[in-house]
Structure formats: C-alpha cells, structure tokens
C-alpha cells in the first residue's frame, strides 16, 4: 500500500466499506466480459497462468489474434458453457482495488431468459455495474437489469456507456443517453447513479481517463468503485439477530449465535423474541468467540442473556419495545419464480428465511410484472423467470420484515417439499394479517389419550390415494365393514362426498386440489382427535399435497395407502363414466388424462388394484390394526 492511501485512510472519519459486493449486468454484446476482464487484469486480480490461457486459447468464431488477451475467457467457467459459448450461471470473482478495498463480483449472464440468475447475483450486491452499448442505446435489457437491481435492493448503480469509440466519442450522444438512464433509475427508486463514458476495448475511462474524451471530467470506473460508499446505516436501524444455534459449554454457558442482520447490540441492551415476546438483557457479546462491548450488522456473534428464556434455532432476537419485528401469518410479497414447474396457487411450500423454515401456501397471485415496461399484468400463475406479486399464508405466525428494512429478515426462499429444489425467491412487502393474539387454543380436561383409552384402540388416519376408478372407495367399504366387526370405530371421508358439501366451492385445478386435500386432512385430524380410525379415499394426485397432509400428523398416526391400478384398467372400469367424458374433452382436468398422477414413491401400504377387493381390504385391516 502506498503512503498516500494510508494518510487518506487516517483522515477519513467514517471507515470505508472494506468489502463491496458488485453485480455485473449487461450482455456479452455490450462488452461486459471485456470490461470486467480488463478491470480484473489491470488490478492484477488474475493469476498469470490464467492470463496465459486467455492469450493462447481461442474458441470457435473468435477474431481476437492469438497473443492478445481474450478477456471473455477470463470470466468464463464451466466446460458446458464454453462449448455453447454462453454463460449459464452466476460466477463469483474477487478484485483488489489500489486503495485496499475488496470487490466481490457476481457476474450474471445477460440473456433474457436468465432473469433468475440476475436476481441471484443482485440479491447480495451493494452496487451494480451496468453496461450500455453507446451505439445501440437503451434496450429492453437495460430496463430489465435496472428493474431487477432496484427490486433486489441494490442501492447504487455505475452505468458504463461502452463502445464510445464506435460513436466517435461524441459528447452530445453520451449526455442524451445519460439523461435517459438517470430518469429510468430514479423512476425505479435508485437515486445513486454514476454514468461514465467508456471504451472497454481501448480502456478509456476504465482504469485511466486517457485523452479521447477531454469533455468528461468525472471518475473512471475504477475510481467510482474505489470511492463509492453504501448509504450509512441508520442510527435507529432495528436490531435483528436470527438465531442459528444455541451454544452450550461448561460453567453453564448458554449463548445464542448468529449473524447480525440489522442494527447493532451492546452489553446491557434489552432484547425481545419476536414470536414469543419474552425478553432479557444482554450480558455478554462475543465476536468470533471473543468478548466485545458492542457488535454491528454483519458481525458473527454469540450473545448471552441475564436470565434464561426459551430460544430455539430460527427464533429472531430483536431490540425490545418499538423495535420488535411484528409477527403475522399472511403477507404480500414479490416473487422471482426460479422453478421449472410454474407456481401452483394453493400448493404448500417450505419457506426459508435465514435459519427459520415454515410451511407456506401461496393464496393469490396479484399480478405479473413486465420488467421492461414496468406494467403490471393480471396473472394467475408465475413461470420460470417471471416476477410477480403474491399473497401467501404461513402455517404458523412468523416475524418477517419488509425487504427494504432488512434483506436477511425480509427475503425468503420457497422450496419444493418433494424435490427440495428452490423454486422462488421472495421479497416481503408487508404483513396482511397479524397473528391474532386473541385466539388461544383451549386445553380441555379430557384429552385424546383419554378417548383412546375409552375406544380401546388407537386413532389413525388411513389416506388412500389412486386414480379415479382404481377401487379406493370399494376397498374402503369392505375394510370398514371388517373393522366394524372387530369393534373399531371408523369413518370414511370420501372425495366425492366431501365435494358435495364442505368442498363444493373448489375446482379441480392443481390449486383447487391442494385446498381440497388440506381441508380433508384438517377434518381427518379433528376426527382422529375424537378417537376414530379415519379412512380417506381421495384421488389426491400430487405428492407435495399428500406430504403436506401427512405433516400435520404425528409419527405413526398417518398411513399412506397407494391403490395401484393401471390407467387402462381404471378407464375400462370407468364406474362414473368420467373417463368417457374426459376422452370427449368435457373434463379437461381429469387425473391421468389431462393432469398427471404422481404415484407415491414409498407408500406405507401398496395395494395392487387389479387383485380381489377382499384381499386388499384384508391387507388394509391388518395395517390399521398394526398387525
């Protein structure tokens, strides 16, 4: 480090941010790889053997002479993409600036279909560097990238108007472009915008200003990266510590470990748990295992409290009083849909926010955002790369901050319960319904165990799934007759029957089916609590819905039974004439015809629907009796 920069640092009152995360946006055509490659090379952030590779290797169609650096090879990663010549994912690289600042670059591909990658890269970024082709001007992609940056909370944008050499370094054209970019950014809520005319190929205004654009007196790209500072954290930013784990050690040590997501904490501060409302005072603050007086956002801490309160992983420790995050069970959020399968309204997903995970259901899609024009379009579903506004409900009340207050306690992931894939990233906007503090489950004196004793057998839920016409109701009927003889108290919840009453408002779309399954599962639970053996006979074609149903029961209470009958057999039986109607196009949502049936991977009981009803009923009875 030079003496000059050392002195500068001593004079600075506020500590400059040591690490700045940057998202690189724009397409290869805009010269993004060249700009990033040049920045990396000129700041000495590329090992020489990799530079050598970029000098000697050429991909098909390259016009860069061997011996010169093909910068795009420096910012490439996987073999697959080198073959295809496109970037398919986000790459992370580091760059050390002359003033000692570390830049972590998230390089997102510029293709239209990869909005999701752009969103990933922008989600942790402080600043965006956006490439605009001076010759082609603002394009749909420019707006798309600005919109995603704004949405994901990127606070500053450096716009590099590239290829100035192709337009003769014209001042007037640049000013015109700069004006439109500033206007677009401000409209989206990004106020911190720096626009720089550059030529990534010649290097003008990248590292040094050069002499081609004497009319430009502002910063170079490197200079802007060095001097940019994130907006100062508000003094009164609320304290948020999502608890990752409880640390127990000798001498009765009990600490709560996590990374501070917002605000700061000092010894003696009063803290409160968002969900339970219990509070205590901070006794010790440990940063990286060592005692400290205070700690700030981004620090990995362990705090101990002056008295024990009930804390588990996933709880949110907040500053007490006004600062406590509010809990609710219904929210409005923006979703970036990442999954290959579209969003299914009514489907239950796992919601992850930091160390917390709760089941959540999308209850309504409000609109889809046109990321180029900024318009909101009515929509009923979201597909991969769509961004849209939704409402969702969580199974239990949870504290979520608005995303603009805190990224780490307001941003969440939706995860498919079966494939475990991350299907969406969500940005909480506001809470719709507070968890009602006036509703408290009442504990009655006669409990489930007492009823079980009176009944003389344990209650149970037997969930029969299979195609229409597979034989579910027929087998259930025979099994219940046998159980009745054995003195077992039973009840059958039949799909067709509940749709005449309780669920007559529901349709047969994936969303309607999810809600149908949810209600039947809740009713089955009530009946189980009453002490009954409940047989559910329901097509319930989706694994995720059945798993959500199983999840509200304890281990051993829920038996999944797969009535496995080939579609051809069921179609031939066609007891209700539904397959004929489906074939005539009258029932578009018929399972096995217009909609998929997802067979259980490992049902508790697997019945071959082509075998005799009596045999299958007998197997079911034995399973229920636990034989």
């Amino acid at each position, binding site marked *: 480090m030079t003496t000059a920069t050392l002195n500068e640092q001593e004079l600075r009152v506020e500590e400059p941010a040591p*690490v700045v995360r940057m998202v690189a946006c724009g397409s290869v055509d805009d010269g993004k790889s060249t700009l990033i490659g040049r920045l990396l090379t000129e700041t000495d952030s590329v090992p020489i053997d990799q530079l050598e590779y970029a000098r000697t290797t050429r991909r098909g169609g390259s016009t860069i002479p061997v011996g010169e650096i093909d910068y795009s090879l420096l910012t490439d990663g996987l*073999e697959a993409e080198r073959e295809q010549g496109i970037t398919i994912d986000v790459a992370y690289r580091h760059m*050390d600036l002359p003033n000692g600042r570390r830049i972590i670059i998230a390089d997102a591909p510029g293709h239209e279909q990869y909005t999701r990658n752009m969103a990933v890269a922008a989600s942790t970024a402080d600043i965006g560097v956006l490439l605009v082709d001076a010759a082609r001007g603002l394009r749909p992609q420019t707006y798309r990238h600005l919109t995603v940056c704004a949405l994901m909370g990127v606070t500053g944008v450096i716009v590099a108007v590239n290829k100035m050499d192709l337009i003769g370094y014209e001042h007037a054209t640049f000013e015109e472009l700069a004006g439109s970019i500033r206007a677009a950014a401000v409209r989206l809520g990004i106020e911190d915008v720096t626009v720089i005319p550059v030529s990534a190929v010649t290097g003008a205004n990248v590292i040094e200003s050069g002499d081609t654009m004497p009319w430009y007196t502002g910063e170079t790209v490197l200079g802007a990266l060095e001097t940019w500072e994130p907006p100062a954290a508000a003094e009164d930013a609320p304290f948020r510590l999502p608890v990752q784990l409880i640390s127990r050690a000798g001498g009765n040590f009990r600490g709560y470990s996590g*990374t501070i997501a917002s605000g700061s904490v000092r010894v003696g501060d009063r803290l409160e748990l968002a969900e339970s409302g219990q509070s205590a005072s901070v006794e010790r603050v440990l940063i990286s295992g060592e005692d400290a007086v205070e700690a700030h956002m981004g620090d*990995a801490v362990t705090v101990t409290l002056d008295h024990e309160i009930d804390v588990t992983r996933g709880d949110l420790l907040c500053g007490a009083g006004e600062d406590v995050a509010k809990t609710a069970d219904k929210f409005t959020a923006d979703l970036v849909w990442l999954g290959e399968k579209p969003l299914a309204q009514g489907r239950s997903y796992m919601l992850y926010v*930091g160390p917390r995970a709760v089941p959540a259901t999308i209850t309504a899609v409000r609109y889809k955002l046109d990321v180029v024009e900024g318009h909101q379009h009515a929509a009923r579903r979201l597909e991969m790369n769509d961004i849209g506004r939704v409402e969702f409900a969580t199974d239990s009340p949870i504290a979520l901050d608005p995303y603009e207050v805190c990224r780490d306690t307001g941003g969440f*992931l939706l995860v498919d319960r079966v494939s*475990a894939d991350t299907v969406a990233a969500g940005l909480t906007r506001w809470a719709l319904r507070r968890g009602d503090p006036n509703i408290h489950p009442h504990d009655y004196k006669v409990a489930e165990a007492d009823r079980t004793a009176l009944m003389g057998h344990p209650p149970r839920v037997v969930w029969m799934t299979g195609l229409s016409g597979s034989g579910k109701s027929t087998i259930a009927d025979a099994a219940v007759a046998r159980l009745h003889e054995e003195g077992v108290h039973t009840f059958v919840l039949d799909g067709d029957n509940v749709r005449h009453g309780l669920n007559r408002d529901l349709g047969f779309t994936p969303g309607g089916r999810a809600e149908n399954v949810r209600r039947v599962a809740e009713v089955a639970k009530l009946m189980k609590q009453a002490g009954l053996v409940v047989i559910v006979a329901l097509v319930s074609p989706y694994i995720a819905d059945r798993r959500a149903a199983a999840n509200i029961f304890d281990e051993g209470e829920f038996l999944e039974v797969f009535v496995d009958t080939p579609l051809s057999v069921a179609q031939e039986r066609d007891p209700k004439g539904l397959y004929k109607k489906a074939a005539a196009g009258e029932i578009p949502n018929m399972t096995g015809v217009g909609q998929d049936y997802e067979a259980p991977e490992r049902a508790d009981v697997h019945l071959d629907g082509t075998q005799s009803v009596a045999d299958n009923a007998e197997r079911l009875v034995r399973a229920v009796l636990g034989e």
Partner: protein
Amino acid sequence: MTTNTHEMPEITEDSVLEALEAEAIHIFRETAAAFQNPVLLYSIGKDSSVLLHLALKAFAPAPIPFPVMHIDTGWKFKEMITFRDEQAEKLGLDLRIAQNKEAIAEGVTPFTHGTHEYTRIMKTVALREGLDQYGFDVAIGGARRDEERSRAKERVFSLREPGHRWDARKQRPEFWRTTNSRLAEGQTMRSFPISNWTELDVWEYIRKENIEIPSLYFAAPRPVVERSGTLIMVDDDRLPLEDGEEPEIRTVRFRTLGCYPLTGAVESDAADLDTLIEEMGQSKMSERSGRLIDGEGGGSMEAKKAEGYF
C-alpha cells in the same frame, strides 16, 4: 477524480479479513445447525488449518461439534501425517481416517495407474466410501473460488446427487444469507466456508491469527529430483528413480500439499511467513498450477467433480 497510477496492495486489509472471517463463521454455524451429520474434510494443508481455526471460533466457547475426516492415500508427505496427529491431539479432534485399503492392497500407486486414475481411486472413491460409511450428509471443505477457473461458479453450499455426483444444472441459487438446506432422498451437501477467500487472504489470515501449518510450506534444503521441469521431493524410498536419476539437495518449498510424488516444489528462499507472503505477491500463479493432477485440459477439475471429487 481520475486514477493515473495504480499500485497494488500487497497485503489484505485487516478489515477485509474480518469480513471474510464473519462470513465463514456464519457458514460454519449454518452447516452445523441445519444438517444432521456434518463432517469437516481435513487435508492437512494451510486451508485446512484455517478451516479448523475458524471452526474453533465459530463455536467457542463450545468445542467443534463435528468430527474431521482425512482421506489418506498412503502417499502423503510423512510430515503431514505427523502434523495431522499432533493437531488432532492438541485440539481434541474426533479424527476419522478414510482410506481405500482394497486399492492399496491391489498395489495402486501414482506410478502404476496414471495420475488421473490414481486420484479417482485413492481420493474420490475413498472420499465417497468414507462419507457413506459414517452417513455424513454434509461435508465441509476448503475450496476457494479463486483456485481455478471452473471454481468461480461453485456454490457455497454445493449439492451432490445420489452417488455424490455433482450436476451443474441441479445447483441451487444462493440468495442473501439464507440457505435451502433441505435434502431430497440420497442427496448430500458440500459446504465451502472460505469460498470468497483468495490464496493471499489465507496466508494473511495465518499470519494475523498465528495459525500453525506444516513446515513443508517454508523453504528448506530437501532432496528432490527434477522431472519434465517439476521438482519432486524424495520423501521416502518408494519413489522409483529413473536411470541415472540422483536426488539432489535444493532449497525448496511447497505451495500446496498433497501426495508427494504428485506435488511440485518451487525453489525459494522464503523460510518464514513474511518472506513467503512477499514472494507470493510477485509470483501470481494459480496455486493449483503446481498440482500435477489438475493440468489435464481446461475443465478437468469440472470433469473430476462430476465423478464426486471434492
């Protein structure tokens, strides 16, 4: 303001190291708390020493809550094994050693099977078997994004399909500090707490925190032979010498540590950390370039990863 000169920093700022440390601790804690059965893969190198140090800090004052596992090919430098056992003793580690004993019995060596096949059998297969044997669902490693081009896209939490297979298309997007830690049937996870560190950061951190590392990293007179430009240390008498080949004593050190017949030494006078870091600032080669097993075509690391290599 225009920047006309750009002198590069030779040291990593302490504040940068603190930020990287906090991030690594967060990842360690998440790994330990969100999964059932974590393990730290311990390779005895400098990155492993840093990982252990970070793990101690992440859980202090409680002890490290998971075992560490070493994949022992039987061809590591002697000093590495001594160092490993000393560290385990000193830090009270629950050390597991995984080794492909069948292959050793069958006489698989770096000389008989070629480096690629040897690596697959002795490292990749041994790792897979070690993980399966104990049922570890997440393995913590010291991979960094600056090591090699294809690593730039590696996730912090990197998913493995059944059979420990890495599938580029199944990798999960990583937002904020939130991790999707859910595993489907047969899936496991790899966790890389120092993903965002550079090689120089690792060295600066070792100096700042006074972390113990094997002395092989420092220059000393050692017996070596030169083979197609690479200096190989004669660590024991198992290294077959070619006709007329005579080990000579040269002052060398190692940038990475692995199997001694496959690890190239560099001539150097850097006998302490300060000189070493200064020397590093000048050389600027990718550290993996000293490893004979990686240099087989542009994306060979990627191909190995797809098979389950770490």
